[in-house]
């Protein structure tokens, strides 16, 4: 592995490649990064394992920092967050954490039980609402999710709430009719309040592999995603798909989930994510 004039420790390069693939960055992204690294190391100096890693960290760090943009919820009232994503990624739990987080900042939060489909989805959010000490707007199971969101927004405005966080049912991005339902949910909110939902938050599961890219692309194309939340980073999965997603779709990662409790939510910090990636 000799670059024009420079010398790269081939074994270290392969090791680096495997580390990044193991972290779910994806073979194509890793190939691009490795090629970029090779270009950076042309110039006659010797690049050993330490220097290669440092250079790679710098390249990835640059991409991650572009994805660092905290959510600003003070510009609208009520600020409406619509939480979406495929099945089981942690939407409902993330909403509970967000509710506790903003309530802790002294904000008045209202939740909308927009998952009217899955067994005990409403009950699940109700328990969380009680624990986070925030109110919830719900209808009966099987109700029209758009009707729930509509009522919730109306209640949020009437009660002078600071934040409305809407839960939606998990759905695969490949289900056209379910994506249509989500679009209708969004339209119904927009019809009632000019710029609502102000944040369309896509929740991604760090244990997912390359399919997370398809999820981000499809939900973005169909709904217009404005922010990401990456959950289950307390496991051993690194969530490396986010590097490609940030770079390609220019989406900010607002929060990361690091556990199943109410306080297990952190703002996305590029340096911390980067450090964990290279552990």
């Amino acid at each position, binding site marked *: 592995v000799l670059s024009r004039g420079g010398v790269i420790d081939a074994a270290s390069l392969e090791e680096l490649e495997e580390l990044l693939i*193991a972290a779910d960055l994806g073979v*194509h992204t890793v190939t691009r990064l490795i090629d970029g690294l090779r270009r950076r190391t042309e110039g006659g100096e010797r690049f050993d394992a330490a220097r290669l890693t440092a250079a790679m960290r710098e390249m990835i760090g640059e991409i991650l920092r572009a994805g660092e943009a905290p959510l600003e919820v003070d510009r609208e009232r009520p600020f409406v967050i619509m939480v979406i994503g495929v099945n089981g990624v942690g939407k409902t739990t993330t909403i509970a954490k967000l509710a506790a987080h903003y309530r802790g900042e002294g904000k008045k939060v209202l939740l909308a039980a927009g998952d009217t489909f899955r067994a005990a989805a409403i009950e699940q959010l109700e328990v969380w609402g009680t624990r986070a000490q925030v109110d919830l707007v719900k209808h009966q199971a099987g109700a029209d999710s758009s009707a729930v969101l509509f009522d919730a927004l109306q209640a949020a405005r009437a009660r002078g709430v600071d934040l409305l966080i809407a839960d939606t049912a998990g759905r695969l991005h490949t289900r056209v009719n379910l994506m249509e339902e989500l679009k209708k949910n969004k339209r119904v909110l927009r019809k009632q309040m000019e710029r609502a939902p102000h944040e369309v938050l896509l929740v991604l599961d760090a244990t997912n592999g390359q399919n997370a890219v398809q999820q981000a692309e499809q939900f973005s194309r169909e709904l217009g995603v404005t922010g990401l939340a990456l959950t289950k980073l307390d496991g051993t999965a690194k969530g490396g798909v986010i590097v490609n997603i940030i770079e390609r779709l220019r989406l900010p990662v607002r929060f990361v989930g690091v556990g199943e409790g109410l306080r297990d939510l952190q703002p996305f910090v590029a340096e911390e994510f980067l450090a964990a990636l290279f552990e």
Partner: protein
Amino acid sequence: SLTQRLEGIFKKLRGRGTLNERDVGEALREIRVALLEADVNYTVVKSFVEKVRQRAVGAEVLASLTPAQQVIKIVNEELTRLMGAQGAELQWAPSAPTIVMMCGLQGSGKTTSTAKLAAKFRQEGKRPLMVAADIQRPAAIQQLQTLGKQIGVPVHVGGPGESPLRICQEAVRVAAAQHCDVLLLDTAGRLHVNTELMEELREIKARLQPHEVLLVVDAMTGQDAVNVAKAFHEAVQLDGVVLTKLDGDARGGAALSIREVTGAPIKFIGTGEKVEALEAFHPDRMASRILG
């Protein structure tokens, strides 16, 4: 598609009788990329590609095939062989009840799959009993109860403060008393690195001796599948895998990784949110899905 990419590589080599080292080398690079794109773990990819290399170099190209098709044929055969026998079924215990323990990471589809299996067994004329052994997730018990009502299968619920182990032990007594054929234990999602929760699972396995321990895995799982599968296998010795959410467009390479590191066969696949969406596993279909 992979076939097209390999056709491109071999286009210049029409008419050769056997596959030589260099042609195969280039083809193997494409195959490696395809498998990594499909989320097959990179260590599994390494050993798999090596197996294919050994079979492919010097191999005769059948008269009816192009060199690319010959390589694809070898890859498909190796993959299908690795994925295991078709129709690995649930093993029924010699005397009732057969105890099935569902385990896996958070959100993988355990509760839904428990209900799917229960519904299937009921249709087959068996008497299932589901056990709500997840006492930590909000409304987990209600979730299983709601599903139980939908499918007409009873759910055993523990008393206040009862541990998951106690709930399961009590359920075995209830199952025996009610002449149930199969007991399905729905456990809480847990991280394989949570020592305490893995110990809890180990204890349930040790004390209840389930006849089938099924790891429920999300088909979208990435490289981490190997770590998860190894840890669960070491803790509770898996008898099989339920691969869920295959109705999406994930390639499902985790299936290969799990099979490779644990030897556990995929016994069922989840193909939707409804309780009827459970199907038998077809290794050949999975192989072509992974290859893309």
